[in-house]
């Protein structure tokens, strides 16, 4: 996710400026929509996991405000990503056409009659994507700070490496 989402944003910014006669003019958006729907699936799985499993304990030695902001930022990512995907879906389906995922299956349109739907959804999609990637950058910087300044296990645990001093579950 940490790689797919900034990748999708850069890809999205690139594809909307393509010339009509560019070979990627059609494939680019097809791929962007398809990957976006895969991200939705991953996000739902992750949220399902998050709600049904105990959270790993945070590193000891973290201040209260750090713990609170870490939790808030995580929830902010869920909300932002859901809103970005929903707004993207509302652009593509504004005229009632479905979203086609890798030519394998379709996701039907639902809401189609919001005035200027594709423009409003496009505005939301763009600014939230930029905001999310900026927040993601700060999130990564904070993880690097934990790794190099606090010298704790936060970054290693985020990328799935087991902690050096104790088991990663921390439960």
């Amino acid at each position, binding site marked *: 996710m940490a790689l797919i989402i900034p990748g999708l944003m850069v890809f999205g910014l690139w594809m909307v400026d393509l010339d009509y006669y560019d070979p990627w003019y*059609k494939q680019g958006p097809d791929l962007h929509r398809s990957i976006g729907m895969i991200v939705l699936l991953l996000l739902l799985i992750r949220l399902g996991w998050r709600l049904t499993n105990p959270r790993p304990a945070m590193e000891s030695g973290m201040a209260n405000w750090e713990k609170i902001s870490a939790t808030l930022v995580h929830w902010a990512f869920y909300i932002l990503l859901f809103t970005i995907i929903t707004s993207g879906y509302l652009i593509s389906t504004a005229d009632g056409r479905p979203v*086609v995922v890798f030519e394998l299956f379709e996701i039907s349109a639902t809401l189609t009659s919001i005035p200027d739907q594709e423009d409003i959804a496009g505005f939301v999609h763009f600014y939230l994507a930029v905001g999310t990637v900026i927040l993601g950058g700060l999130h990564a910087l904070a993880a690097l700070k934990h790794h190099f300044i606090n010298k704790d296990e936060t970054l290693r645990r985020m990328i799935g490496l087991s902690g050096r001093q104790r088991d990663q579950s921390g439960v």
Partner: protein
Amino acid sequence: MKRITLLTFLLAFTSAVCADNYVIDTRGAHAAITFKFKHIGISWLVGHFKTFSGEFTFDPDNIGATTISVDIDPASIDSNHAERDKHMRGAKYFNVAKFPTAKFDSTKVTAADDGMASIEGDLTLHGVTKNIRFDASVVGQGKDPWGGYRAGFEATYTLDTQDFGMSFPPSNTVELGLFIEGIRR
């Protein structure tokens, strides 16, 4: 604008090739089924059917092998006025509750003069199926910029609404326009 005719294609493609299958590009909205009829005999009212799908086969060397079938959702009628569209969907006109589908299936296609093709087929509308005939012409064909191959046609047909059990006074005629772009499979 110079129209590329079927004759041009007959000359340009001398080798025998099989008829290729094309899907009408409704997904990319490069196709339209329009209609116009006279409003109280004074002006033209223009609209289109938003939802339809179809396929055709096309071989420039063998126009007689052309087939085309189109399914139209009559409830998708759009005359740029929601209340009028509702009225047209109702029992007095298309009666979409009772007749939810409309379609055209070609039965015979023959090459005609001036690069036109004469298309005969069964049109089902308002629960009535009738054999109709109209002329069509090739607009163009060739590779698209995205790795596909496309062919485009246009045709018009003047429909007598009474043939299909509908009354569109005062003239009872509706002019249908068919603007089709197909992507080769």
